[in-house]
């Protein structure tokens, strides 16, 4: 975390746990540093601090705590979203932590350790000038970041619209969340939807240009990504999350970032999503 700046919460101090550290495969324990890929453009999950260098966010603080437990020296490497998965694949990164939602397709490619859940939240311009109703968005232009769970959500809703004989939803997919937000602010699109913490943060920071719409719904887990061959490492990270949940560091972090709604009690490696 960042020392001086008062705005962002401070990461708590965590002691290494030798038993957990022993679970980490030798190649990582002996390496000088543990490189984690992150796309720091998704506040409050992960983003760049004012100094444009330090990467902060609740996902970051959580994993930092885990790494401390495992006695790993983390180096965060900021990279475009797409690049993180490739980096994990190629061994460029030892892990990827960047608000990755777990889904079936992804589990086929990598190991993912669940540690948080997020719901989907709708938002629109302040005062809802277009009278958007999330449950009846037929015919509207809705902005969303590409390759997120929200895209699938919207596709389902759009199909319902068509079945009900109404106009389909115009799904406007953007390469990044900030581009999507921008079009809602400008009024080009009627509303948007994203992970709850992201929306909450956006509403707060856009000085009342945006407002949330309805309640969050349909929680999905976030997962830390490791290479598909690294089952042991995944297990160690899972144990690390479990340990910080037990000693309260986990709640402390979520509390400071004001995202306690997403807390879970039982981190899992490659969780069964149908449960």
């Amino acid at each position: 975390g960042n020392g001086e700046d008062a705005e962002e919460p401070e990461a708590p101090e965590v002691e290494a746990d030798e038993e957990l550290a022993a679970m980490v495969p030798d190649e990582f324990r002996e390496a000088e540093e543990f490189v984690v890929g992150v796309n720091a453009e998704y506040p409050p999950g992960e983003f760049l601090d004012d100094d444009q260098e330090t990467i902060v966010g609740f996902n970051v603080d959580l994993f930092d705590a885990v790494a401390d437990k495992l006695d790993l020296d983390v180096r965060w490497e900021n990279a475009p979203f797409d690049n993180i998965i490739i980096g994990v694949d190629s061994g460029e990164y030892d892990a990827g932590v960047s608000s990755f939602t777990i889904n079936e397709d992804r589990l086929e490619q990598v190991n993912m350790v669940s540690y948080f859940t997020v719901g989907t939240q709708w938002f629109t311009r302040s005062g809802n000038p277009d009278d958007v109703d999330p449950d009846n968005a037929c015919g509207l232009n809705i902005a969303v970041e590409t390759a997120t769970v929200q895209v699938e959500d919207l596709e389902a809703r759009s199909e319902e619209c068509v079945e009900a004989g109404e106009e389909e939803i115009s799904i406007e997919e953007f390469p990044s969340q900030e581009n999507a937000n921008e079009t809602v602010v400008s009024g080009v699109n009627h509303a948007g939807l994203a992970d709850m913490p992201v929306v909450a943060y956006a509403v707060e920071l856009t000085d009342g240009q945006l407002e949330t719409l309805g309640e969050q719904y349909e929680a999905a887990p976030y997962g830390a990504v490791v290479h598909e061959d690294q089952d042991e490492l995944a297990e160690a990270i899972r144990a690390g999350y479990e340990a910080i949940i037990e000693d309260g560091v986990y709640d402390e972090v979520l509390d400071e970032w004001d995202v306690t709604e997403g807390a879970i009690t039982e981190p899992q490696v490659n969780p069964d999503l149908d449960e």
Partner: protein
Amino acid sequence: MTDAGGTVGTADGPPPEEIRAIPVRHPGRWLAALVCMVLAAQFVHMLLTNPAFQWDFMFDNMFTEPVLIGVRTTLLLTVLAMLIGIVLGILAAVMRLSGNPVLATLAWLYTWVFRAVPRLVLAVLFGNIAILYGTIEFGIPFDHYWMPLLGLEGEARIFGIETRTYLRGFTAGLLALALSEGAYMAEIVRAGLQSVDRGQTEAAQALGLRRSTILRRITLPQALRVIIPPTGNETVAMLKDTALVAYVPVTTELFFQLNNIGARTFNLFPMLVAACLWYLAITSLFMIGQYFLERSFHQGERGTTVPTN
């Protein structure tokens, strides 16, 4: 010396045998070529054996319907943006060289601004034009200022286009790309026109051809020789820059579609390779077109090659 005439003769009989000389050996060249070829072979070998490529996954996904639609959109955007861009470029280049200071300055400003602004930003801007202007209105400008001065009320606008309705999606993306391309083409066309010998213009003038005819019939066709190769570059670059319309957003676009499959499945690398293969295929198409264009415009030209001896 004056008494020493030359000895000359006229040949008769069948001509002597043809000269078939053994060419100069360039071992360095051959070595370099060999190294390059081995590298290429190793690369291909790696492609085929490296598990990271997941050829099955790639082929399963690179011909799905959304991807094919993406290919169509990309091709359409490339061709249209280039066509509009070339027209804009010729216009700007002619203005720049016209000798008329106002026109030249305008053309220069256009080139300056639209080359400097990244296409990504243009795409974002044109996708969010509503952030700048809610509607694009036609009428007498600055009415908010001068109407009150004249004691008039209301607005001096004749009709407006709701930008949110019309300037979005494909149109907005196309406009962004074409305007940007026009600025680049302006420089290329300018260089082309400047490469034509002034004697050509003078001869045409002396024949009583008009300025526009000279441009169309004499200078531009000769400039094409110089214009075509960099325009080929621009086309190939545009092919890939169409990916930026994702920021408008236009999502029925090749790269976006492939990337999306990759991001959804966390299997990005094979999809990037798929993108490369598609681009290679389309680029090859363009290069064939360029080859025939160049050949037809080299007709009658006295080109140069690097001397071979």
